[in-house]
């Protein structure tokens, strides 16, 4: 069963009179419950693909069905709800809110969803405990190491029980030891919780943690491989 399906999706960025096609007529399906790596050189359209699936941007052409919703038909508010309830984002630069502590950062998606504070706190504490961050809850992001910050970002991504985790170079800004820890967490989420993760990465070594690799070049899908085939 597919969790995401793209049909003839194109995305063209326009800067002044210059048009830059980031994705060209892409059609692909991502199966549910798999850990999928999207790889390719810089400018190949990896992040654009992730942004379109995550409802952060809209395609110039084509249709995206994600988590049972046709994103084209969603209003701006409905897209925001989709991002909040169905998607968990993990970014390369963590993107935590600097003036909020770890707990508050993790509770934020629940606060946006309207979950009451007590329930949100309990759930956030649970996830932070699982990720080994229970003693860091009062710390601000700038008091944490890169690996810890990325774990906080993962906790924030998980807190609303999303169907899909979209990770854009999640290990791009941390050392190799922490990168393996993060990959271990992702693997566990897929294996134990049946979650789907689509991860953009440059790092070929990380693809061994994945079930599937999608290769992009110049906005076109070059190939799709099962990891065992690699």
């Amino acid at each position, binding site marked *: 069963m597919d969790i995401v399906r793209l049909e003839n999706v194109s995305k063209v960025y326009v800067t002044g009179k210059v048009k830059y096609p980031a994705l060209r007529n892409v059609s692909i399906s991502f199966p549910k419950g798999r850990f999928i790596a999207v790889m390719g050189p810089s400018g190949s359209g990896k992040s654009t693909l992730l942004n379109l699936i995550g409802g*952060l941007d809209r395609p110039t052409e084509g249709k995206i069905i994600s988590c049972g919703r046709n994103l084209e038909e969603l209003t701006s508010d409905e897209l925001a709800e989709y991002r909040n309830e169905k998607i968990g984002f993990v970014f390369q630069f963590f993107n935590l809110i600097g*003036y909020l502590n770890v707990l508050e950062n993790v509770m934020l998606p629940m606060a946006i969803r309207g979950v009451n504070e007590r329930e949100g706190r309990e759930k956030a504490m649970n996830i932070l405990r699982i990720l080994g961050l229970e003693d860091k809850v009062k710390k601000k992001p700038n008091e944490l190491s890169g690996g810890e910050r990325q774990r906080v970002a993962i906790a924030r991504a998980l807190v609303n029980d999303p169907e899909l985790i979209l990770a854009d170079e999640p290990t791009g800004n941390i050392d190799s030891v922490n990168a393996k820890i993060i990959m271990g967490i992702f693997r566990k989420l897929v294996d134990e919780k049946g979650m789907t993760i689509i991860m953009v990465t440059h790092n070929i070594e990380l693809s061994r943690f994945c079930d599937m690799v999608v290769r992009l070049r110049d906005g076109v899908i070059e190939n799709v491989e099962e990891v065992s085939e690699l």
Partner: protein
Amino acid sequence: MKIKELLKLAFKQLMERRARTILTILAIAVGVTSIVALSAQVEGVSSEIFKSLEKLGPNTIIVTVRSGSLFTDVDVSNVKNLSGVANVAPVFATTARATGINDRITILGASTTAMQTILGSINLIKGETYNDVPSPQAIIGYNIAIDDAGTYRYDIGQPILIRIGSRNIMMITVGILDFYGTSTVINPDNTIFIPIDYIRLLLRTSGYTSMIVKTNSIDDVDNVMNLIRYMFGGRVSITSIKQITSTVQAITAQINLLLVSIAGTSFVAAGLGTFNIMTISVLERIREIGILKAIGMKDRGVLILYLSQGLILGILGSCIGVILGSVIAHVIPILLSSGMMRVEITGQNVLSTYTPAVTPTYILMSIMIAVLVAIVSSAYPAWKAAKMNPVDALRYE
């Protein structure tokens, strides 16, 4: 997102840039402070004036000779017989100089009954009222008897030398009036009251300069004024307390409007300051807005987040402004009475004799303006933040 959570987030954002937030709050507070402090002065002065008018009563008419001969006993009797007139108190007023006083003072020849009519009640801090007989007795005003240091220039039983025109007159102090403060018809604190018959004897006149006329009711005032005007024509000026009250009301309303308008201009500066701060705040937080949108905050949520920052700035600014304004409102009269500023009328610093009145109307008005200015100034930056494309915001360096 619940409003409570948005407000908490907005407050945290503001606290992250504490110094800037405090300066913006103070900029807003300046406008509120000015309105509260200045309106309190005008309200205070007008309230004092109204109090003195109330003492005279709204059914009082003051008739003063403008040209020609003074009022005679027959004139007084004719006015007394007019329909609607309850009582007439004839007085003789002139200006003079007294030994030890630099400024000119008022000499008012009046019977004790007339005194009562003019002052409302005769409040003496020392001595007693004079007998209505032609003898050199004087009841002297507070500022004449007591100097700025609070010591007595003249005490009971002491003679006081008065110079009216080229004539020197020696009077004996029999009573000292309490402090009356702001007054509209006469200034009791700068006046010496002497028996009416004595001043007429001294100045060899059988007339009176003014008549204080009391009507049976307020409804009779206009009718009696018309009758008096008919009786004396253009040689007298006729003023009713009712008229003075409405004139004072109109003047103080105008002064208040002027002061509030001047104070209001500071809100323009505060508004621009808030707009500037909110614009910078949004620019600095573009990436953060992208994050909030990525994790599901709706455009409306972002809009409220930044508008509520304006609201918080406005509320805090106005609270501080009200407190500062109330304090300054009470400091201004102290500065005025200490002689740092003087507005003298007939030798008296009229600004030293009122209690400022901080009124809820102006507090509410200034709070509303401040909050409105802060919200309006935040509206455009907030709208820009709300309309930001999440991908562009996340990519912003």
